[in-house]
């Protein structure tokens, strides 16, 4: 599966396109990390636990999007976008979407 966030796949031509494919997941971190992050908020700096959580979730979302594209018989997803939103306090939703296409 070829993934890109531009209009096309360089060096190939799009022969067929499908609709929007998307993948999403909602993740929460456990309370221990939450409390540590609370302390980190005092001194600032990277919230490693949160970075990890979001990276993991984003991969998860991407995987689901690819799964949708595969179920269509597409071999590439172009113009992919990510969006992150906080669904509830301590929980984040990762959403990836793009257009499934067949390239040659």
């Amino acid at each position, binding site marked *: 599966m070829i993934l890109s966030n531009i209009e096309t796949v360089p060096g190939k031509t799009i022969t067929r396109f499908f609709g929007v494919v998307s993948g*999403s997941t909602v993740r929460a971190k456990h*309370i221990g990390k939450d409390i540590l992050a609370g302390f980190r908020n005092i001194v600032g700096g990277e919230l490693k636990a949160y970075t990890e*959580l979001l990276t993991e979730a984003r991969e998860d979302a991407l995987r689901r999007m690819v799964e949708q594209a595969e179920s269509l018989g597409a071999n590439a997803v*172009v113009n992919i976008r990510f969006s992150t*939103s*906080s*669904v*509830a306090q301590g*929980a984040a939703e990762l959403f990836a979407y793009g*257009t499934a296409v067949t390239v040659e």
Partner: protein
Amino acid sequence: MDQNAEVLVQLVIPLALLVLAYFTGTVIERRHYRSIRERERSWSELPVITLRSVPSGWRVVDSGLVSSSVVISVDYFKRFLAGLRMIFGGRVKTYESLLDRARREALLRLKEQAQSGGYQAVINVRVETTRMANARGDSRIAGLEVLAFGTALELREAP
């Protein structure tokens, strides 16, 4: 007796609310999914894509911005489970179906919007999710808005 009343308030009422929320929530969700699937099938001929340029071979007569949104709320049962999930971390499974429904609904409404404007396709679609605070302004979830927007195209002939 006093203590019994206290137990009632502490345990029985939330429990009853949970059971009620679970059953109504399940029925509503099942019905909504049925309607989503039906409409997705009937609207499948109208392309909605994230590409920014007009696909080659389309002859565009007119274009315009279309947008649609859905505001959804979490039921008591799902909120309860999500609350417990915050302790252990991991996938908040109960919210996934909720967001899935909202997003598919928003895209379907976008198609309906495009059709009623006399358009045959939507390009450069974007989807945004925003959490809305409740009237008291506290951090607990009140509603989620899913907004979908894109440029609708009127074509000389259907794609």
